[in-house]
């Protein structure tokens, strides 16, 4: 049983899973912290084999990001209908996608060669952080990013703005 999961995980890493299997595996990963740790180790091993390891590892980084994502608030639905004009669309969950996106963008720029891997929400953010001189700044930047994302999420609910919020979401990449 355990070995089967192991096989699944490495197949998932190599993108050799059937779509259905992938979903199952990911669901599993989402539920099982031990499995996630294992997933992270697999990646570490793979990175080590590819000589892709930074001088220092921050093992808790993924955990922190994952915590943040779990805690990221959807827009407060209860208060929206009363306070906002009707062209505001409630978009619970937008923050999740957006904050992951921008967190990743911020990260990728500070560590351009690190690869981002699928997995649980925790594993999605790369488990390895390069501790360069820019690392401290990138943490600050990603915190600032999370503010911007939370802000934009509310701005995006206004239908008058059209597709702009989505553009702003991915358009930042070239600027950061």
């Amino acid at each position: 049983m355990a070995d089967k999961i192991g096989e699944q995980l490495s197949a998932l890493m190599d993108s050799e899973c059937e779509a259905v299997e992938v979903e199952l595996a990911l669901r599993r990963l989402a539920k099982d912290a031990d499995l996630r740790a294992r997933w992270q180790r697999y990646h570490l091993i793979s990175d080590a084999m590819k000589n892709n390891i930074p001088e220092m590892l921050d093992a808790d980084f993924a955990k922190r990001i994952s915590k943040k994502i779990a805690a990221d608030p959807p827009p407060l639905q209860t208060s929206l209908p009363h306070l906002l004009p009707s062209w505001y669309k409630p978009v619970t969950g937008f923050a999740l996608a957006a904050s992951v996106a921008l967190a990743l963008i911020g990260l990728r720029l500070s560590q351009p060669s690190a690869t981002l891997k699928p997995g649980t929400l925790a594993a999605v953010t790369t488990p390895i952080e390069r501790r360069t001189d820019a690392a401290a700044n990138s943490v600050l930047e990603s915190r600032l990013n999370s503010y911007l994302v939370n802000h934009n999420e509310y701005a995006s609910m206004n239908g008058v703005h059209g597709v702009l919020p989505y553009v702003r979401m991915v358009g930042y990449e070239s600027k950061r």
Partner: protein
Amino acid sequence: MYVWLVTNPNANGAMSFKIRYLAALLLILLPVEITRADAGREEAKQWLERMIQAAQSLNYEGTFVYVQGQNLDAMHIVHSGGQHGERQLMSSLNGSMREVLVADNSVTCLLPKQKVAFSASAYKRSPFPISLPRELSKLEESYRFEMLGEDRIAGMETRIIAIQPRDEWRFGYRLWLERQTGLVLRSALLNEKGDMIEQLMFTNVQLKPEIDMTLLTPSTTPAATLPPETKSGDEAVAKSAWSVAKLPAGFTQVMHNRFSAASSSKHPTEHIVFTDSLATISVFLEVLDGTKPLLTGASQIGAMNAFGLVIADHQVVVVGEVPLATVQMIASAIQYAKGSASK
């Protein structure tokens, strides 16, 4: 008119006749002027209504460019609306591949190298806004609507609508709407000087009776879609140590939340949102606990202005698509009541 009255003090009969004549003329002419302004305003409002409806219901495929400051981006968009719900796929045409899929009431972001889609939990989409006219009227407290004439965008005829701020606390907007459908073919955000600081313009757009679903499938095939996470941790704030003493005219508070940030999970971040029904301003409050502040002073991020300051060992960040003066004003009006419940 008054000069004439003074210089003809004795011509009583003629005067009263002329006064009556002029008054009558005024009565006839004034309403014409008012009606003309009203008509333009009403027409602009009707176009805005059409625009919001078009954005949700039309099927189209097109390419647009996005200019922000020194940056230029091109994106392809496919949108299907109507009974089966909105679906939209946007993909970048330059730089690294970035895609945003809006489907089944969730937003999915696909970014390079990472082959996983982030599925957001389903949300209830509000039905088509029926009270739109009333709300557009409310928007008129802060903005003035105007028809600015015609233009040709992406080979199509458009009408130009200006949403002009009534004061300097907010930015202006200009929208180019396709004549037949009301679809936005070009839009611009204008700063307090009237300069365009952000622009989006279609170079090509095709309206379609139906959209082939394959066009709405991201090319970056995700290995999988993550199941929606059950979220917790955020809560509406009933009692807070923070308050904003004074707001720029037209802005009201619409939300006050508390959420935990990854970087400081010990201390939740408070998030207060203000809007004038168009522009959005956020205030973020987070305990510093001796750590380095994120932002002090003014900063510009894209079309947004931000202002950071430290109050009582808290990082305060005010951000919004509004002039710097507006975020600065709100930042300076933030008050911290020591001893008040902050938990």
